[in-house]
């Protein structure tokens, strides 16, 4: 099982299907653009509390207007009913000049003029899975199979988790700091590994992860997996 998970992860970090045209996009550039232009209004995880815009988890090739709880503009609702799908080509057009593509969209964004910028951003969005395993500061990385396969000591995990709970909320709510409750172990292992090795940026998390051993990462990940909201 752990073997399979490892493989799934490396696939999710590469690019699939109709996104292939964007396979050569610069992910780091895309990530930087996302942070700069999109992140204040759009989360990357469907578990995140909504910002002013809908989350963009797995948006590429998704049907338009599908984020539950978000009140889309009438214009977008109509386009969605008419069958709009966010293929890379459609996203490319939309992002060039949103109000030209969809006159009454709620999105107050002037657009990205540079074709290469749009290309990189869409490439970045295309490798976001539904849990928002993204926000990667650098390009793809591999989590060692041995780390993914480690069994975690639940009692040690419970103790270590107390440090996390100062910032990460038990309620399951999240916005900037994600909740860890009931998160699949392989996701947390991947995230902590990425922080520890510098693939993912956040000063506080890099600092915390830097002193975690493989065993401690496994203990934490397996403990949080057992917790319900």
């Amino acid at each position, binding site marked *: 099982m752990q073997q399979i998970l490892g493989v799934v992860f490396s696939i999710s970090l590469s690019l699939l299907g109709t996104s292939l045209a964007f396979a050569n996009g610069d992910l780091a550039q895309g990530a930087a653009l996302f942070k700069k232009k999109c992140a204040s209004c759009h989360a990357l995880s469907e578990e995140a509390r909504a910002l002013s815009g809908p989350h963009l988890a797995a948006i590429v090739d998704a049907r338009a207007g599908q984020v539950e709880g978000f009140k889309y503009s009438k214009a977008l609702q109509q386009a969605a009913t008419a069958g709009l799908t966010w293929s890379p080509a459609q996203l490319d057009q939309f992002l060039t000049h949103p109000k030209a593509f969809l006159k009454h969209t709620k999105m107050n964004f002037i657009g990205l003029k540079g074709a290469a910028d749009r290309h990189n951003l869409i490439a970045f969005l295309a490798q976001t899975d539904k849990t928002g395993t993204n926000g990667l500061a650098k390009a793809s990385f591999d989590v060692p199979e041995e780390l993914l396969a480690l069994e975690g000591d639940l009692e040690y995990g419970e103790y*270590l988790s107390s440090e996390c709970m100062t*910032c990460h*909320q038990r309620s399951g709510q999240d916005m*900037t700091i994600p909740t860890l409750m009931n998160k699949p172990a392989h996701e947390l292992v991947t995230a902590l590994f990425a922080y520890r090795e510098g693939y993912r940026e956040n000063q*506080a998390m890099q600092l915390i992860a830097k*002193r975690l051993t493989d065993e401690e990462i496994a203990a934490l990940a397996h403990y949080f997996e057992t917790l319900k909201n």
Partner: protein
Amino acid sequence: MSLTRRGFIGNSAAAAALLSAPSLHAGSHAKPRVVVVGGGAGGATAARYIAKDSKGAVDVTLVEPTRTYYTCFFSNLYLGGVKEFDDIGHTYGKLAASGINVVHDWAIGVDRDKKMVSLAGGSALPYDKLILSPGIDFVEGAVEGWDLSSQNAMPHAYKAGSQSELLKAQIMAMPQGGTYAMVAPPNPYRCPPGPYERVSMVAHYLSQHNPTAKIIVADPKPKFSKMALFQEGWNAHYAGMIDWIGSEFGGENVSVDPSAMTISIDGESINVDACNVIPAMKAGRIAALAGVTDGNWAPVNAADMSTKADADVYVLGDASHQGDMPKSGFSANSQAKVCANAVRGALTGSKIFPAKFANTCWSLINADDGVKVGATYKATDEKIAKVDGFISKTGETADIRKQTYLESEDWYTGITSDMFG
């Protein structure tokens, strides 16, 4: 069998297995008893974790005089108009519902021989382990001309609550072009960036409502926490409004006259419209009454936060003298978890894991302009020692600063639910 404290902690699993639970606490009562004095970031967290993790095997009593606790952290955001007063208030109902005996009273004495805490209301609480987390009190005579009887004219607002409301009302009542003065405290004190975040938040409020007002800070220190970040922000957002006078320019030579509303800095007397005096600090008084202080603070062992004076009395947070951690709510919360793990282990035989500490202090310079400083720590024989750290950089983009502020909002929700359930 002889076990040193260090040996016991270090080989806890083996040691705990050797010593069965009932032999670990004296007395004839059914369950071991923990009394926690002080319901802030240290005490509330320790009480909650001991009760939660021992699943009813330990009797936990929390003594806290106030029914609604106002956090010092984020109280500056209330002064700046970024948060409402109710946003920083918390009650103890969830802790009580989780089985903790919450007693709203003042602890006024500790008999360490009889292991009893006496309360102002007249009753006494027996304990096997006592955790003191009383926060700070002020050193008498620290600022010439100021004492607690002048705290209405010149509030400290360094214990949040009515003092915060009072200071805010005085800032709002300042005449156009008026002067706000702050007397900053000497090291060590609660929340190192706190006074400077407060200056920022007062400036934030004044820049919107009283843009010609001035802020003067008399500081006994030559430098302060996140100084470069604050000064960059003050220049960018509040140019010309803030005059910081450090010790090199006479900032330590200060006296106040609360009845005349004047402050004298290095011999020069200035009329002020609002004056925030933050005096030198010491451990909350119950620590001294318990006889576990040495000077202004209570020295503790880094491995479990037990005091040097008494292995059954622990001191958390601001009141402790522990080494490299700043006196902050985050630090107290972090220390509480290490302490809770050790206390529970000592009383029930549960596994004691090695101490790990962390701290992050977020500060808000202007709306959406957040910065942070953080570090990790470990327990050594001498003290809690810093391992590694980070600090926000000057010149960061507005997006990063906003992200940092949003992060602090989530942290606030996280830590307060970690404290109060």
